[in-house]
């Protein structure tokens, strides 16, 4: 069930656009913000609320890179793997994350703390390599900084 607060926030987004459907991406963002990811049941609840079939909403949800249709950890690491970070050697950062976290792309640590995902260009190419954890951007990365960065997230 959508919570009263979720419904309230989604209704606000609906008020800004001509149809209920048009607010579906905002609705998915609101629910994901609260629940971490979009489960099948969350999807069905949102679909009903914005007058869409679950299949139609799923076609939207699965199109976008940042709507998670599988569970993720408490923190999501998005590592840029695009061209400037490639040239600047981001693979050292990737391999270090693989080794210290014991996971590869698309996986979540056993304690549910981190999910590691590759991400297209973060738009900070003059400060490559770069990654984001949740809402935080880290640039000019070196392997030496990683431990301190990761320790901020519990």
């Amino acid at each position, binding site marked *: 069930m959508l919570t009263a607060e979720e419904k309230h926030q989604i209704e606000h987004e609906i008020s800004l*656009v001509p149809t209920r459907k048009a607010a579906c*991406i905002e609705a998915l*963002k609101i629910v994901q913000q609260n629940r971490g990811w979009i489960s099948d049941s969350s999807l069905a609840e949102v679909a009903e609320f914005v007058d869409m079939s679950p299949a139609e909403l799923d076609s939207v949800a699965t199109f976008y890179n940042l709507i998670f249709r599988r569970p993720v950890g408490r923190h999501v690491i998005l590592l840029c793997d695009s061209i400037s970070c490639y040239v600047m050697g981001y693979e050292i950062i990737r391999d270090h994350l693989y080794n210290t976290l014991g996971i590869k792309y698309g996986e979540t640590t056993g304690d549910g703390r981190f999910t590691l995902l590759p991400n297209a260009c973060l738009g900070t190419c003059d400060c490559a390599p770069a990654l984001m954890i949740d809402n935080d951007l880290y640039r000019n990365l070196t392997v030496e900084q990683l431990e301190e960065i990761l320790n901020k997230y519990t």
Partner: protein
Amino acid sequence: MEKPLTQHIVPGRKPLNLKEYEAVGGYASVRKVLKELTPAEVQNLVKDSNLRGRGGAGFNTGLKWSFVPMGPDAPATKYLVANADEMEPGTFKDRVLLEGNPHQLLEGMIVAAYAIQANISYVFLRWAYKLAAKEITQAIAEAYEAGYLGKNILGTGYHLEMHLHTGVGRYMCGEETALLNALEGKRANPRAKPPFPQVSGLFGKPTIVNNVETLCCLPHIINNGAEWFKGLGKGPDAGTKLYGVSGRVKSPGCWELPMGTPIREILEEHAGGMQDGYLFRGLLPGGASTDFLVEEHLDLPMDYGSIQAAGSRMGTGTMIILDDQTCPVGFVLNLQHFFAQESCGFCTPCRDGLPWVERLLLAIDKGEGRPEDMQALEFHTKYLGPGNTFCALAPGAMEPLQSALKYFREDFEQHIVEHHCPWSTVWQPSI
């Protein structure tokens, strides 16, 4: 040297708030257009200034606006959208403007919206730009408070609403018709044109989508005139341009310079030249979807016509440098992986062709390529080229590939003949 767009941007400092922005002349252009100019006069002024779209296509902005239905018979609802979905790999110029001076963008948007008589506007912002989202939210609230947005702006009867929409990640959203689908809560597939968005865009209403940098030029054109703007450029193209450089240079960054500044000046004076121990081999002049340029092109001015005449595109104006210690096959493989991943899947050549190109390149990079793979890659540069796909994504993807096959052909062939990567760096695509 005049730097109108970045004059009030100090890296690391909070952007000007509304009061501070007004104190340095901010929102003067809104007063001027609303009180002194008709929408047609604004359109003509911008057309005369020769402002060309800074998102990559380079179309005359005033001319783009002129296709919007105007007058009493025009639809009552029209939209203005700022395309702030910067996701072209290697591009980070709009971030500078969004984080550094959000009120300048809002001012430009109000001017543009007035010129086409739109009453609803959106900033379509990339999800990753968290700081920009915070600054723009704050700026929009301040602008409503001060009466620059909402009903009866400055007592002129003009009405404009503005909303921030943050996306959820997909390169396609930068294409203007796909962006409109995303704003409507749909998959960001591109739309067939015609009808063009100017006539039937967001929710079927006349809509203009302009790039952030384009919009940020508008207040200065209104305040200083078309001739002044044209005079800022060094060659045939008007204004300043935010140029960027990334890769193995000493000082990567983004600088506002006269339109038409030579590539060599940008690379050597502003980016500081190559890092010690690295040699220049080539560059993509304006993002991942532009053709390589090489040493012989370095004295070209960075303007639309010169770069096009050299077989490439100025694109976003943010260059990516290929150095001698980076494998050109791996470099192009990385680009093609991005495009294959970001293809919307709507049309077959793009959906199936790009992953095939990626597989061929990966095989070559691993030393498993066959001589006939070169012909297969050549074939794809034609088969996925202009006219064969539904939108410009795949043709854009083919630009760096076709020019790499031209300028770095020996490196590709060496991989095939020697059965290994001469750089011994085989890139493993993400998943």
